[in-house]
């Protein structure tokens, strides 16, 4: 018996080793394929998520509701404190409301004087956060709207207050939003009173740092940070957050969107900007024909 097993092992072991080798090579091949032809694999990934995650929804909903109930119940415990706090805040808000009304009137007057046209083409689709497969390594959420609602890669997603992230990966019924805090996220921003531009670079922490800032002295903690619209990535002027100084003396941005509870996100329909590509007849009276690429007419 024992001898039998040994002889069969002699045949089985090398074959097994070859098969395992093939399996590992195939897996590394997938990795290589992803590295070489990322869009195709990412499309496959989006399709897979599209199939897989909504099938969990029947179970996701009760668990989420339950978690919400537990949270609500905890909040009952400190209801008195909350009430006091809300009253105080309400007082402050009333003062702010007066100020806001006055400012709104003033703003309307000034806009009228300037004949400013606000961009009327910004409309939005609202989606519910289906799941967040967030981890300390990847910061993204999944929305229940996708290609069938007309969502396109690259559109901006906001909650009620501020920018949350951008669409990256669209399935037919789901779309993934890469949050501003993800380490792959870079967006061009303007810091408001000083008008300086910088890059908001996510680093997986709750407060992403500002990079490529020209003059740090002109920026103070508390300044507003809005998207600048450079490079056509986002519409300009969306509120991102406020500047804060981290413990390491780097300038970071405290995001305006409430990342703790992302429930409904609005995805802004943005349209490609019109671009001015030719120099114009007045500047160059007789423009030369475009230069054909070298080697194009050689063969």
């Amino acid at each position, binding site marked *: 018996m024992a001898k039998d097993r040994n002889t069969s092992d002699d045949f089985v072991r090398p074959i097994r080793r070859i098969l395992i080798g093939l399996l590992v090579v195939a897996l590394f091949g997938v990795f290589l394929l992803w590295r070489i032809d990322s869009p195709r694999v990412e499309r496959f990934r989006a399709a897979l998520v599209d199939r897989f995650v909504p099938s969990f929804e029947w179970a996701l909903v009760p668990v989420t509701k339950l978690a919400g109930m537990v949270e609500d119940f905890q909040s009952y415990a400190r209801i008195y404190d909350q009430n006091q706090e809300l009253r105080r805040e309400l007082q402050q808000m009333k003062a702010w409301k007066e100020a806001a009304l006055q400012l709104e009137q003033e703003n309307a007057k000034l806009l009228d004087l300037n004949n400013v046209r606000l961009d009327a083409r910004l409309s939005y689709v609202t989606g519910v956060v289906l799941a967040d497969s967030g981890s*300390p390594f990847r910061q993204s*959420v999944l929305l229940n709207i996708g290609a069938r609602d007309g969502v396109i890669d690259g559109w901006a997603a906001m909650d009620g207050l501020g920018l949350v992230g951008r669409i990256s990966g669209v399935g037919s019924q789901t779309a993934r939003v890469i949050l501003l805090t993800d380490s792959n996220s870079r967006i061009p921003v303007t810091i408001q009173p000083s008008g300086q531009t910088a890059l908001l670079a996510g680093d*997986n922490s709750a407060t992403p740092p500002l990079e490529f800032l020209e003059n740090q002295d002109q920026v103070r903690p508390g300044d507003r940070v809005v998207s600048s619209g450079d490079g056509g990535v986002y519409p300009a002027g969306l509120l991102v957050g406020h500047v804060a100084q981290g413990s390491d003396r780097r300038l970071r941005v405290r995001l305006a969107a409430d990342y703790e509870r992302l429930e409904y996100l609005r995805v802004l329909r943005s349209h490609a900007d019109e671009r001015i590509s030719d120099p114009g007849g007045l500047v160059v009276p007789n423009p030369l024909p475009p230069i054909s690429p070298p080697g194009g007419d050689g063969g």
Partner: protein
Amino acid sequence: MIDHFTLHKWLYRGLLVALTVLDIFIRVLPLGEGRGTFPGPELLLCVVFAWVLRRPAYAPALLIAAIFLTTDMLFQNPPGLWPGLVVLGAEFLRVREPLSRDLPFAIEWGMVAGVMVIMLLAERMILGVFMVEQASFGLSALQLVMTVAIYPMVVFLSTFALGVHKLQPGEADAMGNHV
């Protein structure tokens, strides 16, 4: 009629798939858990290694590859690299399964920890060579420490709750080729 051992083998393989689905389900829940704070341990990796060192037949290489490729796909990791390393690590341990039957648990733990460290280093090196954006080393190391720390717990649970215990000397002969 189905052989007793074969039935068990397939039952436990099904159980492994069920554990995977549970793990994915918990990680996909919109509770905002673990967001930007503390990386949780990789439970599936512990389960797979614990089973490979106890009953290799319960965790075949193809199933391991499928499980980790699926989680990679769903959680936005670079697909294929980590599953490949997990399969290699599991095979390394699988070959040493007969050896580890008589060893104390501490040595098994050390062996598993060593394999995990090498896997992590290999992953980071390959990602570095291919110039893929990766998380900070501190975070990955922290996750590794958590995974290694949770391993005895996983072994305890899978032994006493799921009944995956080490082969006794007599058992191995009785099961013959089903080990």
